[in-house]
Every structure is written in structure tokens, then in C-alpha cells.
């Protein structure tokens, strides 16, 4: 099954859209009609062929255009990719993990040939064909983390594990839900989550950290997170907030279905073998309300979740002002019928 890569933009004229096939595999994040923070971790093992949960690193129709958007962000602001000096080994671990997994899961798109430390990497969708020496950064055009994450959808937080904590000591962050790598780099797990409301009091982060510290090699985990974004803008960074914040005020009852997007993060967690670090990819999927509500179960449920979300969370997620308009739109898809448990649209 080949993937047809779309040529589209995530800024300016916003030509991004999801094909019907992409919507069928959209990671709708709500398994019931309400939402509250939870650790909600599960093993990152294949579920339902064709779903975003099937491969270690999902590649979809937006791949090539997302990588072009990342390159633009990095040209404008190189600080979106940073690695503290002790993190190069983690970068090699990550490069190996991604190359091995992608070559295994998508042999028609990615190929990796290894002869000792002489490696040959072919990335057909991006037209890359590089030979390099593993663990010798001088043989790559970028550091190992930057090299491979310029070729992989999703943001990447590369974490060092020490003192019974996780430290955000490297990352590639260009599709973030309003947090700054440049500010948070060097922080521990509790510090970089400090601004999140309610979850600390519920003990979420203490339990999540305990879980993450114990992730074993070859046994990755995953969870979903979500927020709302006006326009299919990948780069909702605090760095550029003074430029994109105003877009939140452009919603009208007429355009809300097309402009308001549900932004879902598929967060995965992999142990890195040499460094004993952890990589925390945060993969962003966007879908407009109009496309989501084509699935009756999702339309009903999204209305109920947004309606009943505590005010602190709607504020933190940045859509408190637009909530009435979003609810007005979504209410037409909620006939009050019961919804089945679980995230899948047709079950």
C-alpha cells in the first residue's frame, strides 16, 4: 500500500487537508463522553492495521509537507532544535531507533544497510541517500538527533535519566502546543510540566514519572493528549504567539467548521539503549471540526467533551473565548443518542 504524499501548507494560505482515508485513521482521543487528565498510558504495540497505532513511527500523507514546514521553522529560528553537550549519545540512539524501525515498517520508503559502523540510509520520499559512519557526527550534515528528526514527523523530546528524574536535555520542537524548548531545556519532569493546571494536585505527574522511569528497552508506551487550534497551524509556538494569537479571533459561525481544528498528540516513549535515556516523540495530528463530525459518534462525543470541560482546562488549552462558538457548531451533531465506549468511529 503506497502513500500518496500531499503538497500542502500549514501556514499562510493553509492548503492542508485530510483525505477521507486519513480521517478514517485520525486518532480521536476521547474514549468516553467526558475528559479529565489521566496518565492513560498503554503499551505502544500494533493495534488495527492501518491505524496510527500500528507502526513505531507513523508515516502518513502529510509527511513530505510537514518536513518542509519544519525546515522553514528551523531556518527562521534555529533554537527550536537544541541538544546539551552530554546528549550526543542519546542522539545516536534515536537515529538508530528511527532508521531501524522505519526501514522495517516501510521498506518501500526507507532503507538502511549496515556494515559495522558504515551505514547507508535511503529516504525515498525526501530524496535522501547518505552514507555515514555511525557514532561519527562529522560524517552527517547535522548532529544525529537533528539529522533524523528533520526526516521524522512529530516533535522529539530527548530525555536524560538521572537522580530518579527525567531531564529535557535535547529536543526538536517545531509543532508544539505552545511551549518553548529554548526555555524548558535543562528542566526536570516536574519543572517543565509546572504550568499545567490541576494535574499536579491529582498526582498525575508523580505517577507518570514513576511509569516512565521504568520503561524498558523494546517495550515502548503511548498516550494521547489534545488541544484546539484555529487553522491547521503546526507551529503554535510561544516564540511566534504574538504573530499567530490573533488568528484565534478570526473564527465566525460560518467558518468555524473548517477553521477550528482538533489537535491531537500521539505521545510515545522509547528507552534508548546506550544512553539509557528516553525519547518522547510528540506527533501532532490535525483535523477540522467539519471532517470530525462526519463520523456521527465523534460529533456527538466531541460536543459533550468540549461542553463539559472544566474552565481551567479550556483556558489552559487556549480556547475559552471561542468555546461558545465551537459548541454552537458542534451541537447540531449531537442528537443526544448514546455513544459506544472506545475511540473507534464505527464500533
Amino acid at each position, binding site marked *: 500500500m503506497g502513500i500518496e504524499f500531499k503538497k500542502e501548507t500549514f501556514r499562510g494560505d493553509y492548503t492542508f487537508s485530510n483525505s477521507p482515508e486519513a480521517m478514517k485513521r485520525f486518532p480521536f482521543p476521547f474514549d468516553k463522553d467526558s475528559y479529565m487528565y489521566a496518565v492513560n498510558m498503554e503499551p505502544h504495540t500494533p493495534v488495527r492495521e492501518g491505524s496510527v497505532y500500528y507502526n513505531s513511527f507513523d508515516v502518513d500523507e502529510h509527511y513530505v509537507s510537514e518536513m518542509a514546514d519544519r525546515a522553514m521553522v528551523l531556518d527562521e529560528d534555529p*533554537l527550536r532544535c537544541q541538544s546539551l553537550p552530554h546528549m550526543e549519545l542519546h542522539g545516536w540512539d534515536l537515529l538508530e531507533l528511527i532508521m531501524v524501525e522505519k526501514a522495517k515498517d516501510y521498506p518501500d520508503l526507507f532503507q538502511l544497510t549496515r556494515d559495522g559502523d558504515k551505514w547507508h540510509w535511503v529516504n525515498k520520499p525526501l530524496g535522501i541517500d547518505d552514507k555515514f559512519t555511525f557514532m561519527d557526527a562529522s560524517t552527517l550534515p547535522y548532529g544525529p538527533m537533528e539529522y533524523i528528526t528533520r526526516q521524522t514527523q512529530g516533535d522529539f523530546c530527548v530525555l536524560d535519566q538521572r537522580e530518579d528524574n527525567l531531564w529535557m536535555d535535547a529536543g526538536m520542537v517545531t509543532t508544539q502546543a505552545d511551549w*518553548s524548548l*529554548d*526555555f*524548558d*531545556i*535543562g*528542566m526536570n519532569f*516536574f*519543572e*517543565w*510540566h*509546572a*504550568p499545567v493546571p490541576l494535574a*499536579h494536585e491529582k498526582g498525575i505527574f508523580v505517577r507518570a514519572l514513576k511509569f516512565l522511569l521504568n520503561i524498558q528497552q523494546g517495550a515502548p508506551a503511548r498516550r494521547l493528549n489534545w488541544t484546539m487550534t484555529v487553522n491547521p497551524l503546526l507551529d503554535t509556538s*510561544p*516564540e*511566534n*504567539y*504574538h*504573530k*499567530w*494569537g*490573533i488568528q*484565534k*479571533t478570526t473564527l465566525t459561525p460560518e467558518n468555524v467548521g473548517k477553521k477550528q481544528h482538533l489537535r491531537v498528540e500521539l505521545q510515545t516513549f522509547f528507552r534508548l539503549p546506550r544512553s539509557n535515556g528516553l525519547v518522547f516523540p510528540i506527533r501532532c495530528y490535525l483535523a477540522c471540526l467539519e471532517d470530525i463530525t462526519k463520523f456521527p459518534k465523534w460529533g456527538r462525543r466531541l460536543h459533550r467533551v468540549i461542553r463539559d470541560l472544566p474552565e481551567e482546562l479550556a483556558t489552559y488549552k487556549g480556547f475559552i*473565548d471561542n468555546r461558545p462558538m465551537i459548541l454552537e457548531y458542534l451541537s447540531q451533531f449531537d442528537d443526544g443518542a448514546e455513544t459506544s465506549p472506545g475511540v473507534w468511529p464505527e464500533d
Partner: protein
Amino acid sequence: MAKTEFPKSIISRPVYGELEPRNGTSHLLIADGEGGQAILDVVAKADDGFLDRAHIIFIPKDTKEKYVSKLESLGAKQCYTGPSYEAAVSRIRRVLSDASNGLQIYLAGSEGVMGQAQREAMNVGYPFQSIQTEHRGSKARRMQCVHCKGITEDVITDPFVCSHCGLNLFVRDHYSRRLAAFQGVCIDAEDPGNVPDPVEIL
């Protein structure tokens, strides 16, 4: 002036204690402004011999002469008074560069100076948990503009104007030890020009 109480805040916001003399092979005491009194207080609690191994670095700021002669007359092995943190920082780096195991570090005064001195110590390998801090005096903050990355020193109101790019920024409690700064974020991005009147930072 006694040590400062701050409102309860988020977990990344630094908390400060009260300086206590610790056993050490040497003692580095760095303070600005009202932090001068914290140094006098910790020295008063210390055993004989503490001052023989002490290096005091003091930046008076608004307190001008209030603490200078008192600190100089303590009889510390070294006592330096500097006109600004920027002027003192090369001396601090030099002292830290040949510090041996057993050096105790005491910081007092404003958050900006304590944060920057702590960062220097961390850069040469001191765990931040081992560095004592005591807040005294001004609640001014050192702020990083998340947009242009420029640092504005001694911010005393919220919101404030970034001294580099001119955006109106609100003052977050989110704090980076690496930058020794709090985060400032544009307050009127969604409603340009609608900037609340500045209030003093608590």
C-alpha cells in the same frame, strides 16, 4: 529587612530559604542589595574560623553604603564590593574555576543575581540543590522575552515592556535555571493594544 515571603506558586518557581553556616573548606558568599544583611546574619551565626576561609562578593545596588563598611570590617579573607553583577561575574567565574571540594556557596538578595550566580556554579558542576539561597529586598525579576529572547533585568511590574523588542509582556512564574530568568509572553496578541495597567509584582 527579613527574608521574603512569596505567594504559593507553580513548581518551577524557585523557593528560597535562610542561609545557615555549613562546614566547609571554604565559603563563597555572593549578595546584592538587602542581601548584604543576610551575609551579616549568617556570619554572626558562624563558628570561629569561618571568616578565615570566606570570600564575600557584594553588589550594593540601591543600598549604596548601608552594608559596605559593615561587610568590609567583618574580617573575611577576601571581601569585594562591585558596582554591578556584570562587573563582578568574571571574578565569580575565576573563583569558581579553582574551587575545591568542600566549597560552600551562599547567595542572597535579588532573584536575578542569585539566579545568575547559581547558574555560574552549576556550570562548573555544583548541583543547584547544594547551593544555599535567601531572598532579601527587591522582588524585581529577570525576564526572558519568549519572542525575541532578550533579557530584561529588574522588572518590577506586570505587564512590562520588553527592553529589546518592545512587546507588552506578562510575567509568568515559569522559571528557567539555565537562563536564570522568568518567562515573559505577549499579553495583547489576541487583542492588540489592549494592555492592562501595570501592577507591582508580588
